[in-house]
């Protein structure tokens, strides 16, 4: 099934065979050493990208992910946020001043948005930029502890510039958040500039090679021309000129979220590869008395843990590709000013970002647990995948907040349908509600004939569930509104229902996209195995949420039994293809970074080899013996 994935071979070969990119196992290095290795490799990478003339964003992405083995690195924000923001938000004059130096890395920048006190809720940011017409400068300040910029990658030690988001004050009025280019370190010495306090925020769960930083500004002045002014402007006398359209930033958000959906798929695929290969190598206990110990992959409970995740990894892969394609398709329209499709895509990607990152986060942990004790060792690679991935539940929009954004769109669509309008796109199933309104019962109480062996029929079941949960949430919201005065209060008191509705909607979208993909696969054998995975994904989702399907009358008790039974049958059907299905993800051993997940399956020997390199084994007798143990024994 290799053709399902974009070819990534050439950068892989370029990087993996290059001795410059080799180093000691990161697990044995301290945080400072890991930072140093990452900086070293990033510098080399920039040079080699130019040398090889690699400029296509996808190719750069692949090259980078091989250099850094899918890990974050200190120049991420420079390459991923600083440069693109200059391109999209700087005036031509500003580009002249900043872009080429930044491209040539004389300027290394980061993007300083999040503060100690505020993340996803951007309007709450407290940093101020006050315009002083006398000197034609902005005065930047961090007025409170909570306003200190906190978390930006590359800020702690690497960058000499930052794009700072601050509340703009001019002529005594607050004009909301705007972006400013702020020099933070002296060129040449790299010392912080007067008025700037900058540093590293300390150790984290993961991201050891990233210098996430803090930034505090005290009456720090920058010229008027350092405000990014392609859209909004402040004129020399302090007059504020409003931007034309504020929906444009949606485009960037959609793009970043599509990357996170892709990351969810990739991270989960890596975890599945490790867990499934290891489960084929590990033998344990006995199924039948007197026979050799079976592979743990032959245990139903192990299959039940891993195969639904494998199916999920494939499902998310298709979803990520769909969002990316849709974004590409409509980005042309966006440039030409047609934003009609953007709100739905924006709302949908918010929910999908949350849904996929939550699921992948839990899935990676499930894979690790399925590897027992050895999964807990850093040599398995699984702890690392988890700690690197888990922040995506928070960054680029905290997941619960994202789910509620999608819910807002769903409720809005429901309200439109209720008032007689039709809605289009992924929410068009809500149109069917109007036919139901004359009847007093739930939408889904109308009989849906579900054929549990047919993905298309299962899409209908998921659709009915989403419709019922959206309707229930909308009705509960209306009931709350009838009881209380405040809209926000009613919304808050319905938010658990609203999140459930969003989840059901996203789940429906994913099953639908996976099912739709099947007909595009021309190779019969591949289509057959993908159909099995698709069925497993859909049926497992039902068996995990039987309450929703039973309560809405979409499935009967008997059908629930059949679903549970069929899930187990599918496990046995997928079992012979399990290793092939993870081999198809085509992760190189170097990229996988796991002793348990090695392609050759020589797990135990290599665990021993790996352990011998551990820092605690540097000497046969550890220095603690002489320092502490021996004196204690002598004294006691």
């Amino acid at each position: 099934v290799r053709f399902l994935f974009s070819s990534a071979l050439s950068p892989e070969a370029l990087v993996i065979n290059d001795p410059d990119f080799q180093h000691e196992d990161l697990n044995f290095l301290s945080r400072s050493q890991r930072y140093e290795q990452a900086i070293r490799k990033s510098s080399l990478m920039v040079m080699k990208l130019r040398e090889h003339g690699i400029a296509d964003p996808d190719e750069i992405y692949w090259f980078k992910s091989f250099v850094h083995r899918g890990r974050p690195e200190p120049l991420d924000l420079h390459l991923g946020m600083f440069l693109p923001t200059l391109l999209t938000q700087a005036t031509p004059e500003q580009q002249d001043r900043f872009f080429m130096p930044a491209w040539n890395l004389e300027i290394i920048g980061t993007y300083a948005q999040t503060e100690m006190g505020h993340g996803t809720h951007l309007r709450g940011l407290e940093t101020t930029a006050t315009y002083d017409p006398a000197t034609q400068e902005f005065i930047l300040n961090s007025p409170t502890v909570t306003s200190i910029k906190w978390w930006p990658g590359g800020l702690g030690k690497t960058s000499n510039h930052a794009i700072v988001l601050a509340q703009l004050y001019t002529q005594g009025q607050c004009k909301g958040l705007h972006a400013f280019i702020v020099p933070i370190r002296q060129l040449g010495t790299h010392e912080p500039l007067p008025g700037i306090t900058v540093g590293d925020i300390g150790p984290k769960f993961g991201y050891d090679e990233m210098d996430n930083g803090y930034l505090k500004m005290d009456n720090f002045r920058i010229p008027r021309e350092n405000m990014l002014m392609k859209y909004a402007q402040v004129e020399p006398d302090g007059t504020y000129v409003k931007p034309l359209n504020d929906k444009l930033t949606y485009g960037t958000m959609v793009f970043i979220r599509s990357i996170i959906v892709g990351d969810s798929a990739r991270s989960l695929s890596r975890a599945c590869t490790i867990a499934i290969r290891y489960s084929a190598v590990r033998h344990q206990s006995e199924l039948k008395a007197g026979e050799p110990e079976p592979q743990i992959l032959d245990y139903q409970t192990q299959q039940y843990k891993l195969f639904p995740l494998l199916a999920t990894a494939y499902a998310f892969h298709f979803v990520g590709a769909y969002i990316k394609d849709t974004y590409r398709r409509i980005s042309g329209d966006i440039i030409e000013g047609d934003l009609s499709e953007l709100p739905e895509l924006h709302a949908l990607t918010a929910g999908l970002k949350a849904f996929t990152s939550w699921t992948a986060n839990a899935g990676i942990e499930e894979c690790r647990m399925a590897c027992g004790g050895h999964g807990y060792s850093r040599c398995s690679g699984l702890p690392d995948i988890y700690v690197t991935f888990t922040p995506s539940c928070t960054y680029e929009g905290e997941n619960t907040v994202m789910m509620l954004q999608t819910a807002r769109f769903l409720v809005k669509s429901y309200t439109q349908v209720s008032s007689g309008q039709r809605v289009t796109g992924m929410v068009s199933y809500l149109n069917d509600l109007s036919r139901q309104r004359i009847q007093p019962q739930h939408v889904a109480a109308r009989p849906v004939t579900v054929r549990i062996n047919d993905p298309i029929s299962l899409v209908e079941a998921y659709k009915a569930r989403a419709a019922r949960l959206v309707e229930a949430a909308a009705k509960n919201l209306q009931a709350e509104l009838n009881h209380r005065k405040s809209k926000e209060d009613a919304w808050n008191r319905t938010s658990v229902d609203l999140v459930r509705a969003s989840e059901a909607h996203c789940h429906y979208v994913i099953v639908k996209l996976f099912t739709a993909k099947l007909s595009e696969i021309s190779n019969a054998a591949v289509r057959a195995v993908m159909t099995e995975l698709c069925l497993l994904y859909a049926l497992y989702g039902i068996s995990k949420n039987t309450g929703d399907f039973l309560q809405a009358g979409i499935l009967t008790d008997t059908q629930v039994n059949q679903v549970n039974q069929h899930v187990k049958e599918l496990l046995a059907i997928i079992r012979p293809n399990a290793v092939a299905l993870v081999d198809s993800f085509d992760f190189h051993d170097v990229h996988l970074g796991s002793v348990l997940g090695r392609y050759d399956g020589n797990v135990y020997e290599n665990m021993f080899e790996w352990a011998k390199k551990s820092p605690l084994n540097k000497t046969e007798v550890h220095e603690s013996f002489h320092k502490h143990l021996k004196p204690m024994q002598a004294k006691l």
Partner: protein
Amino acid sequence: LGSPLKTPGVNPDLASERLTASFSVEKLTARLDGGAEHTRMRRAIVEAIESDPAFSRENQYFQSQNERYEAAVRRAVHLQKKMREMGWTENGPEIKYIYRWLSGDIAFLLHRVFMRSISVLGSDKQVAKWIPLATEHQIIGSYAQTELGHGTYLQGLETTAVFDIATQEFLLNTPKISAMKWWPGDMGRSATHTVVFAQLYVHGKCYGVHPFIVQIRSLQDHSPRPGVTVGDIGPKMNFEHTDNGYLMLQNVRVPRENMLSRFCEVQPDGTYVRWGSQKINYFTMTTVRISILSDEVILPLMKACTIAIRYSAVRRQSKLKPGEQEAKILDYQTQQQKLLPQLAAAYAFHFINIYLHELFDRGYQEIQGRNFDSLPELHAFSSGFKAMVTQYCTSGVEICLRACGGHGYSLLSGLPSLYTRVLASCIYEGENTVLFLQTARFLIKCFMAASAGQPIPPSVTYLSSAKPGKCPAKDKLDFLSPDVYLKFFQFSRLLSSSAAKLQHLIQSGAEKHEAWNQCTVQLVKAAQAHCHYITVKIFVETVEKLDNKAGIQKVMKHLCDLFALHGIFSNAGDFLYDGYLSGAQMDLVTASYLDLLAVIRMDAVPLVDAFDFTDKSLNSALGSYDGQVYQRLYEWAQKSPTNQQVSPAYGKYLKPLLQNRLSKL
């Protein structure tokens, strides 16, 4: 400690939470400690330890694996000194408070398991020989059971111990790489001795797995003994301070007397003698499973709840009403739904833990008297509850971590290390899926016995009660009655249908083991449901027995209701199936559950205050008692070595990069 009045500078957002408590925090703390005198003793011990800078954990998040290990050894040595100074002893009442405060961040924990296994499995003579040496730290012990190739499935262990009559010795060997001992704590660098579990061979016959005391390092220079290869297994997700080790044995000889022989022995002529039940070797493990729950599993959840709930009362984000101040995130229903069920679970597990300890203390006495009748039930209890509580607490701590957004990801929040620590408990002392299946095997046996009219242990008598009809509840308040919701959890459908399916498969010709494997997914669920039921039942019984003074019974009743309703809400399909609950009733359950969140919200901070963790014990920038979150985070981050030391990266790589001399790199 204690009331907010003593602590100036409490963040007003946290202070206001404490003014509205519906119950006496101090009284609840005393109740959790098992009496006010215990609270006093605990606080005195905590005070003595915290005032000693040698025990400070402030820098632990900044340290490397090597530094953590050395610090843990140093602390363990210092503790010996401290205990003597204070007059504390290993068997005294103080010891549990000492270790609880240390949160396991100390060396020689496996040394204690070493001693415990000798006490339980050793003959009186062996106890007399080894325990004094170990107590005086003349030797340092470990407990080497798990191998590279086998963990929970003990029969599969491959290390061998062959009896040599000529020399009256056992010859220990690691015959292949997967037989290497792997994971035992304190063994990688510290231990001089270890209890090795190996397959015993006498006259070519295998007698199964037995424990042997083996010296692995010299008592003079600490170098490995001849035939011994030993080292550290490398970095892990946590436990950086512990030198989990590997051990390879090549023709290592130990005297006949080194096989632990309280229950069985190889006599000089090679005769194998056994007294008592086969299962007795497992009793150490069975009790260890229960003994880890309190400090290693439930405590981390309590700490995580404390951190996440206090932080959620301090963190303000977005507005609930236009024109007002930004709202505390604890006021968002979605945040309450994440955190409050975890809080309820922490209390539920505290009470189930007390119950289990009483049960096991009784069991221990019986076994000391060589009465093994209760072993199967105790074994089923320890397996099921170990699996359930570790799984639930692990997911609970992770929910708390993620509920703290970005700052939860900082090690300084304390949450990542709580999480990575508690999740190890899902694996050690028995892999959870395997353990659930052990409980399921016991339940199926009982179910079959009950069907045949035979007597069954009291904990499972509900299995034989009549199938309930329909749930009678009509109003959402009805679901706050324990009589109503206990019936939900009593349902044995999962078990009875598994039993029926097993029987069906066997009758249609499947082999027994294959039939069992086909049913395991459902059997795991059945075992979970059983443990869930017992937990709710014990919570209900505990609440009934509580004193109605000081508002404690009322607030505990709310938590008990929440724990139960959250269980129904999260497993709706199980209860809707076969119509025990109607769809309309399920909506009432949901409504009742959401109402409870708002009620418990009012007491959320006092309920975590009652756990009475000191700031130093929490070691969290987000969870401190005074709620000065941001200030503490900022000050602490500045102490990070990354801000104290000059990184060589600038001069070596950044400077040339910035000055665009890429080609010279």
